């Protein structure tokens, strides 16, 4: 190619030809670069995604000699009239109602603490983040021992409340789910802290200076500068935490004596999904639960997008 360019004058036509050749080779390379990912995405995301909808209208089982047949909306009506599905769903909702505000506020507080330029802040940031890199299965067994009736948590509780409050956490239908909320917050709050920390650092210093000159108190600055400044980060954290709460599975599988126990008090939608689709091998019904779960996640994501776009329009 260099030879061509050096001998002949690069008139318009040859340049054009050169360009189109470049373009053609570009697209050949592009497809070569894209194919591995596209094949994998197609096989392991798009195909199962479409299949979920299809299977949810059939009586498909995992291993079965019987032919598959369409059952219409049976899987959905069965799921939506089943007590254990709603038990799981409301446990998830209860988890969201408590964990999302508590964890978001806690994460924001941690982020503000480590955002100040003081010695040792990197050390504390690292420590606060350490549970995030702890595998949930490991965290769940450690906390199982800590939540033991005569465990460390109750030792602290008895000291603080003078013996008035020391439930048998994991064997109590009232306290098993709150125990898992505590584990969830302990393990996850560092993740949200880091995202909010990044958001905090994007708030221009000038705004605080201006507010201080105007005589705004610390609290005023927090409400009028910090919160609007990290709005998108907050919305992201709230959405992600809500979606994660609906994916709750590892703890409820490991911590109680029976998954979801005692007496279904820690049953979740994901446990229902695994027990139906895998445990009972009812693929069709499991797919229906998966579709319902996806609709919930999609709705949450759309709500998040709406809020974030609004803010973009204002500024």
């Amino acid at each position: 190619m260099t030879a061509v360019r050096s001998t002949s004058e690069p008139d318009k036509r040859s340049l054009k030809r050169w360009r189109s050749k470049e373009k053609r080779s570009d697209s050949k390379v592009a497809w070569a670069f894209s194919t591995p990912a596209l094949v994998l995405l197609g096989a392991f995301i798009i195909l199962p995604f479409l299949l979920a909808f299809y299977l949810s209208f059939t009586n498909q089982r995992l291993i079965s000699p019987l032919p598959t047949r369409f059952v219409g909306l049976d899987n959905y009506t069965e799921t939506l009239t089943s007590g254990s599905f709603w038990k799981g769903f409301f446990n998830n909702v209860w988890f969201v109602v408590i964990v999302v505000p508590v964890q978001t506020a806690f994460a924001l507080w941690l982020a503000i603490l480590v955002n100040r330029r003081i010695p040792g802040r990197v050390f504390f940031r690292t420590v606060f983040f350490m549970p995030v890199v702890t595998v949930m299965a490991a965290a769940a067994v450690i906390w199982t021992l800590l939540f033991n009736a005569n465990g460390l948590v109750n030792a602290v509780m008895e000291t603080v409340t003078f013996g008035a409050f020391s439930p048998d956490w994991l064997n109590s239908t009232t306290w098993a789910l709150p125990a898992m909320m505590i584990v969830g917050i302990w393990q996850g709050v560092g993740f949200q802290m880091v995202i909010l920390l990044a958001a905090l650092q994007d708030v221009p210093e000038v705004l605080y200076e201006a507010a201080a000159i105007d005589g705004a108190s610390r609290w005023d600055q927090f409400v009028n500068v910090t919160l609007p400044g990290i709005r998108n980060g907050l919305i992201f954290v709230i959405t992600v935490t809500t979606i994660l709460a609906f994916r709750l599975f590892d703890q409820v599988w490991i911590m109680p004596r029976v998954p979801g126990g005692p007496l279904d008090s820690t049953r979740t939608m994901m446990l229902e999904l695994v027990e139906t689709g895998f445990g009972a091998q009812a693929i069709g019904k499991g797919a229906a639960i998966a579709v319902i779960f996806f609709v919930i996640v999609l709705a949450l994501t759309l709500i998040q997008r709406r809020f974030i776009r609004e803010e973009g329009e204002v500024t």
Partner: protein
Amino acid sequence: MTAEPIALDEVKLVSMEKQQRRNLIIQYILMVLLAAFFLFPLVFMFIAALKEDSSVLSDSDGIGAFIPTPWVGLDNFTSAADRASLWRVFFNSVIISSFIVGLGLIVNSLFGYALARLRFRGRRFLVAMIVALIIIPFEALAVPLLYITAELGWLDTYHVQILPFVANPLFIYLFYTFFLNVPVSLEEAARVDGAGPVRTFMSVVAPLARPAYATMAILGFLFSWGQFLWPVMVTRGVGVRPLPLGIGVFKTTPPVQWGDIMAYAALMTLPLLIIFLIFQRYFIQGVASSGVKG
């Protein structure tokens, strides 16, 4: 020296300084308490892993939980290795995570680069598709994917735990946005020098993208090492099972030996913890960058 206003100012300044110092001390006390809250379960685990089984439970109601006596050294680790095939499942986890991350780095970065730089038909559609795919959580795919992989006879293999996680829309998007922000001039220079797109990518683009690769490697390792739900569905024996599932063995086969369990949990936690402590800055940056996509 006798001018009063200066003295007044000084008093004010001193009291402000005092106030500031007091605030700082309060903040440090708070942070130490918070650090204790986040650390104590981990410290408890490591201590328990080194002491006698029977005293793990009996000591767990007080300060004794943090004193490693009676000390048994690595006995719990060897015992856990016997009972739960600790080394076998550890090896399985290493294989599975390495392949997910290793293959993922190649596949996702190539696609991200093609989307960001190369001109081809359907590019815009593919970018929109990737953004849409990020929303789909794996759990929504697990049941139909179980059906597909069972039909293919893939259950109880390594690849059933690897292949579904290699191409990842979130990582593709991370690479895509990273490459969009790299100045084109360097690549153009390479092209003018006669390098084709493949050479350009290998020798110019990939080295530049080291931060993006580091981010994906860290996040990919973090996500894959702790996988639980999918292995529960597609693996049965210890042959190919990853670490987190092995913990179930202790629950189903009595007696419950808490020392062994904690040794097992410690070994599951250590690799990520060590890598995190070495690369903590990149971890924090990686997580923060996964949040900016909103």
